[in-house]
């Protein structure tokens, strides 16, 4: 049982943003997620910190909001951000009038935008197509969405001893006289039930916000689910964010992410939130579109595809097209639905999460009688020791500088040493209570390199057994589930150099270790099958 001032449902960037916002006002929070941090759209996106350019033509309010929020985040969370800059480029076949209007739309949204010649653009980014006819620079940047959520939680824990509970699913609310008194939750691993008493409840469940609102008897939250798929290259392709200068469509953004690049995004309306995974057709579509802007995409090795669901706000009577729906957000106070202590924050974007948290924090603080103002606009995010491991290239730098020969490298692709795993197991937010390979992967680069966890997962598992984090067959089942999950992202990009590796991995996982025959009760064979030769 837990007692708290504010229960927040949803461990994405919004929910953790609200958690930190409230903690900075001195408010204690309990954050729950039925899976883990970044399990939804916060872990399934480009990591693009929009300058606003992408929305300048179609949605000027969102564009201006992105610009303001981007500037704030660059100032308060520089360690999570790569201010790499961005380009908008038009290639033969794109609408010249759309391209021509871009500069003026950016200016009216306050976005710093400069026209450059195609030759200058190709000098900045030699990967660009020769068929370029227009190019503009904008202050796009990238943000590590895993780092930012971890930092949010870490900071909130420090400020008010707030708590994050992973694998904790909301089952029902206990409502009394127009007030939610408590939330009954179930641990999805153990099946145990926990009750959380809270004075205020915030629904920040992203794509699942509609379900959570309905559990509270509220029907006013209506979302459109738009599935988006992206693919990750083996090496970084461009230095900057490269946007196609046309009406947003598939395969028109190439975003660097440390040592790799991400090409996206598709958009497809879906009804069901379960079993969202990328398909061969989506990958082929992204590659075909990406080639027009960056021809080398045709020969690039892609190591993984992944999908997220954009929870888009659906205005009454709006048509069901994910690309045309608003990227804005809404805060529902649910007072007209008879609840005095429930709020839902929905829609929005990664770039605007801080603002979403601020508006939500203002409402919750006022309801709690707390008069502290929002501080996230100016308070820098502290950098916690156990939350640094998501940054590409950090682990090898740390390992080399530390020079401890006994600190074995467990993940060879990303050079993650055993000490990094130890630090996560001991101190990373949400990892202490229930460690799993998946929890470690969310908090580090494990499984994100070319092997996609096929080999490092086994070494990390062995290390966790050595540390006695695991002492039963459960650890091996976690490994199996983790590898199976990574595979969903590998299969659609599996060709060329992937195949030898995939075949070898399967020989190891199934041929040798028998993970395809691992029974959930821990036994593989009837005892009678054991022969004494």
């Amino acid at each position, binding site marked *: 049982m837990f007692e708290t001032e504010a229960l927040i449902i949803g461990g994405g960037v919004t929910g953790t943003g609200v958690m930190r916002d409230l903690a900075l006002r001195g408010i204690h929070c309990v954050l729950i997620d039925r899976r883990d941090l970044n399990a939804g759209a916060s872990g399934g996106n480009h990591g693009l910190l929009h300058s606003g350019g992408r929305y300048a033509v179609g949605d000027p309010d969102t564009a201006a909001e992105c610009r303001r929020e981007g500037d704030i985040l660059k100032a308060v969370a520089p360690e999570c951000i790569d201010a790499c800059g961005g380009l908008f480029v038009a290639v033969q076949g794109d609408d010249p009038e759309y391209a021509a209007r871009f500069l003026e739309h950016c200016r009216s949204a306050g976005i710093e935008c400069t026209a450059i010649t195609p030759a200058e653009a190709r000098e900045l980014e030699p990967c660009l197509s020769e068929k370029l006819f227009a190019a503009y620079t904008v202050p796009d940047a990238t943000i590590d969405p895993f780092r930012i959520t971890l930092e949010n939680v870490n900071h909130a824990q420090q400020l008010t001893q707030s708590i994050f509970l992973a694998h904790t699913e909301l089952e029902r609310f206990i409502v009394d006289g127009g007030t939610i008194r408590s939330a009954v939750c179930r641990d999805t691993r153990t099946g145990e039930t926990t009750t959380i008493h809270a004075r205020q409840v915030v629904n920040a469940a992203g794509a699942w916000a509609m379900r959570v609102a309905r559990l509270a008897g509220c029907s006013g939250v209506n979302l459109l689910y738009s599935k988006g798929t992206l693919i990750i290259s083996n090496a970084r392709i461009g230095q900057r964010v490269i946007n196609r200068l046309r009406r947003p469509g598939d395969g028109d953004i190439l975003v660097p992410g440390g040592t790799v690049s991400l090409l996206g995004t598709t958009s497809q309306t879906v009804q069901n939130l379960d079993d969202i995974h990328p398909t061969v057709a989506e990958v082929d579509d992204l590659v075909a579109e990406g080639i027009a802007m960056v021809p080398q995409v045709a020969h690039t090795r892609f190591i993984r595809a992944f999908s997220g669901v954009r929870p888009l706000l659906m205005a009454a009577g709006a048509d069901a097209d994910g690309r045309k729906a608003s990227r804005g957000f809404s805060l529902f106070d649910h007072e007209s639905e008879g609840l005095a202590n429930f709020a839902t924050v929905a829609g929005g974007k990664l770039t605007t999460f801080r603002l979403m948290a601020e508006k939500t924090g203002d409402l919750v603080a006022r309801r709690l009688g707390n008069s502290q103002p929002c501080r996230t606009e100016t308070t820098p995010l502290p950098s916690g020791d156990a939350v640094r491991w998501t940054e590409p290239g950090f682990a090898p730098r740390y390992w080399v500088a530390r020079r401890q020969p006994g600190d074995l490298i467990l993940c060879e692709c990303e050079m993650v040493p055993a000490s990094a795993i130890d630090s996560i197991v001991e101190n990373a937010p949400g990892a202490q209570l229930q460690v799993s390979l998946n929890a470690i992967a969310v908090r580090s680069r494990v499984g994100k390199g070319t092997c996609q966890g096929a*080999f490092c997962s086994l070494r990390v598992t062995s290390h966790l057994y050595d540390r006695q984090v695991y002492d039963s*067959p459960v650890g091996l089942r976690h490994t199996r589930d983790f590898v199976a999950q990574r595979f969903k992202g590998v299969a659609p990009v599996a060709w060329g150099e992937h195949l030898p590796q995939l075949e070898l991995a399967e020989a190891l996982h199934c041929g*040798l*270790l028998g993970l395809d025959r691992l029974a959930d009760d821990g036994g*593989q064979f009837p005892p009678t099958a054991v*022969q*004494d*030769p």
Partner: protein
Amino acid sequence: MIKQPRRHQAELLVIGSGLAGMAASLFALERGVEVALVGNTGVIAFTTGYLDLLGYDGRGFVDEPWRALIRLREDEPRHPLANVAEDDIRAAFTSFTHTLTEMGLGYTAPGQHNVLALTPAGTLKPTLSLPFTMQPAIAAMARGLDTLVVDFIGLNGFSARELVANLAPRWPGLRARRIGFPDMDSGAEVYAEVLARALEVPATRQRLAERIGPLLGSAQALGLPAILGVHRPDQVHRELQSLLGVPVFEIPTMPPAVPGVRLRELFETQLPQRGVALEPQHRVKRLELLSQGVTAQLEDAYGEVTIEAAAAVLATGRFTSGGLSASPNGIRETLANLAVLQPEGRTAWYRSDYFDPRGHAINRSGVTVDEQWRPLDAAGKLAHPRLFAAGSLLAHQDWIRQRCGAGVAIATAYKAVECAARTVRDRRDRVPARRRFP
């Protein structure tokens, strides 16, 4: 260095130096055929050392593989193992394990039942024949002996605790200890192959036994990662057992691992002594199929090598060893551009569940052959009368999921060589004997 082109002749050219290629060369020798073996041996180091015949079929776990093969002929009539007579599979498997033992790497003779062999994660793997150094584990587990498993500081990816935690429900008398290996206990990473070579020195064995002995306590058996020597594992194993006074068994480590290195080094030293002309580190660059024979070209440090032979057995394996390659548009065979039977389009290559026990369609893709083990073209016609194929390159089998890798390699190599030998002899009758390959 002056590079000089060279030409060699052999009766049979075996391309590929995995298990299938190695087995094909041995079977050719047995039949008195002059044989040359070419191919890169990199991938053989990834074998576990266990020799499987058939561990799972469409009905699940296979206890008696010979009986399961009878069913396989009905259930999967196009499976390579369904197209080799039981007597031939027995003859091939027995001859292969016997020859390995004779060459100095002891293997158990295939029995009627599969045995459940240990894996580094503490799971069990059905297999038919295993190295002498691993065999005592089977009896120790069956009898539930108090057993100590020792692992080593710095040996990445092998955890005795993991093995014990996963086997404990079935084998309660198992416990784990971690120690430092003599002279390699600074904490820095150590490698199984280095430990194995160190244990070939008697003094190292003595010192290791001195470290382990006091830890045994009530233990009636000892398990170690597979590090008991590279060249004379049976001797290292025997001596360590007599030093410690309990049965000792090896557990495979994550590949590439010592059991695979043993096979590689055994073949590389023993095959030339037995008369196989070996070019183990080079891939064939070009293969020409002519009416009177085949010509393969490759390049080594001394220049270009051309090998002429009356027939060739293609045993180039699948994706990992480069026999097959895949582009987004399809799968191709890399050396002779043979037709590859494959699923219609990339969407059908993989199932959405990685661990679906039925396996993925892509793994049953491959080269199809006639009853003489000669590849067929897309129209079902013979690709070339002097070209034969063996091993995992063949379609209609899933060696990984069915645990039939060694079985397919050995049985099909046996048959392909039998058929190729006939072709070679036909020509031998017509063409005078040539100079033997140096």
